[in-house]
């Protein structure tokens, strides 16, 4: 065992990268669920964002254009779900599952010509003095911009939900859509916008994998992160900061266990491999012992006549 081989600074820096796609997708889904909609299509929207962003950034040569395209791709795909569930009043679970299957297939089709291509690199944030600081520099100031967007997004979602009128309306719609409707709020419009926001976030999370974290296009490359994001929202009791904590825990333990393996620590590898799942769930379940609960209208279909 040689724990000195693990560089804690690099470890923290890389766990932040590993956690970001999960964080982006989960924060988006959190907003959707707080509006009372259960969208199981996160994985599908992520992978379509991954290929959409990848294709556009390869064609245009700009990674930033790619990220915008990924958000648009995710949002457009989520519109399909919005149409099915909000206007056609289809079952949300079935529609969400269908969206994932559709997204996986569509992305494979779109990605035919992009296997083995290298995307344009995204520059890292490089602030002259700050990025060169020991320890703090690589951890806080040496990342790609999207990572900071992820953190800012979490803070933004938290503040909007908690303090703003928009947040209040969104929560009202999620808690009791009939009452919100009676008060004169347009339940369908709020939900469609929330679904699109969730789609854009998932798309961005997918593009983060294909453009920054891996970076390349491979079929099925999100490999279940969308599902983990869904679980994370539940275990985080629909609270943004807990989602951040959960994502960093999950990403962090994942990177840590690989580091421990490489350093040859004497813990059986099986336990290390399952540790991210167990510890993340454990911590979040213990935290949710307070009286947090799901939005009351989650997954229920709303119709104005209802």
């Amino acid at each position, binding site marked *: 065992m040689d724990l000195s081989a693990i*560089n804690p600074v690099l470890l923290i820096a*890389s766990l932040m990268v590993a956690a970001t796609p999960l964080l982006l997708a989960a924060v988006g889904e959190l907003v959707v669920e707080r509006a009372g909609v259960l969208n199981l299509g996160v994985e599908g929207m992520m992978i379509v964002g991954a290929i959409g962003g990848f294709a556009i950034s390869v064609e245009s040569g700009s990674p930033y254009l790619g990220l915008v395209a990924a958000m648009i791709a995710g949002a457009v795909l989520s519109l399909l779900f919005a149409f099915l569930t909000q206007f056609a009043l289809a079952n949300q679970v079935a529609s969400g599952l269908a969206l994932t299957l559709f997204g996986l297939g569509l992305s494979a089709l779109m990605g035919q010509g992009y296997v083995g*291509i290298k995307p344009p690199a995204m520059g890292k944030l490089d602030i002259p003095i700050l990025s060169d600081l020991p320890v703090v520099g690589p951890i806080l100031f040496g990342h790609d911009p999207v990572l900071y967007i992820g953190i800012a997004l979490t803070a933004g979602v938290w503040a909007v939900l908690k303090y703003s009128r928009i947040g209040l309306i969104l929560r009202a719609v999620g808690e009791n859509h009939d009452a919100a409707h009676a008060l004169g709020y347009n339940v369908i419009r709020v939900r469609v916008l929330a679904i699109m926001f969730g789609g854009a976030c998932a798309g961005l999370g997918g593009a983060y994998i294909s453009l920054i974290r891996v970076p390349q296009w*491979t079929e099925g490359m999100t490999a279940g992160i969308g599902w983990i994001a869904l679980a994370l929202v539940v275990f985080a009791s629909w609270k943004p900061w807990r989602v951040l904590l959960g994502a960093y825990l999950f990403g962090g333990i994942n990177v840590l266990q690989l580091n421990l393996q490489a350093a040859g620590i004497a813990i059986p590898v099986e336990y290390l491999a399952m540790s991210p799942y167990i510890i993340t769930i454990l911590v979040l379940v213990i935290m949710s012992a307070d009286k947090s609960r799901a939005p009351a209208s989650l997954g229920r279909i709303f119709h104005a006549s209802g």
Partner: protein
Amino acid sequence: MKLTKILTSAVLATGLATAALADKTKVGFVYVGPVGDGGWTYEHDKGRLAVEEAYGDKVETVYVESVPEGPDSERVMTDMALKGADIIFTTSFGYMDPTINVAKKFPNVKFEHATGYKTAPNVSVYSARFYEGRAVQGTIAGHMTKSNVVGYIGSYPIPEVIRGINSAFIHARKVNPDVQFKIVWAYTWFDPAKEADAAKVLIEQGADVILQHTDSTAPQAAAQAAGNVVTFGQASDMSEYAPFPRVSSIIDDWAPYYIARVGAVMDGSWAESNTWHGIGDGMVGIGEISDAVPADVKAEALALKAALADGSYHSFTGPLKKQDGSDWLAEGETADDGTLAGMNFYVEGIEGDVPQ
């Protein structure tokens, strides 16, 4: 009344469709990853396409990709068999027991399971001696590493993967007595993000050569980003990362085997068999060694490849000891296939334990 009518016609239609297809040999493939993974599954699918090309109208092939190993794969195989497949190739180690289970229910359907060891009257197994390719990789890796740390991304701790680690290690040590292996188990065949993380971790801990036994090209991309790390293509050539970081590769060539086996089903000569071919039979190919490798190292690697191909050298030739220091192979002795097929130990010099 109406329902009965519909059902009857449905049954009739199915019957007709089956009859129409009866003169075609139907071939099913079960894949563990997507056909576009650029590695393992990609090469199996190339084999499938070669079967179509070889027999044209006489065959019909179907495949299902990204099938999880375990019980769900039984459903996929059963479905294929019910839809009239004559032969089904199940192309990952974890399909072993499901293949045997489904084969019992369909005695007239032939099954071919890749990389496993359980056979039945209608189940054959086939695999390639990837460890011969690992010997060549180990030789190059031993020469190319400057930090003397070689990173190895394992998928699952199964004999096939452990053989590869041992073979690469033995030959890396042979040319560089100071070399160390750092092994990380990803517990997946295909998860680009995780594979990339594993590669980055190994690079951060000082590895400047990365060997992988997972299916995607993500570790190649991670090595490319790091700049000075050598990699090898796995299962497929991965030539899009040549000449650097990918300096060579192991290429699986399943096409001749698939064509032969489907042909055997057609002419009725198919029988239970256990095929394990290596470089000499062409099932394992060594991708072009790029110019990033010094000429003398390249020559040494090619000489080793030639010796493996003509059978004058075996990848596991004594004297070799097991990790615990006990004797395994005496001077000049070579490992028998039985030991290799069930290999669950590291050779002397590798640090860490095989996960049990």
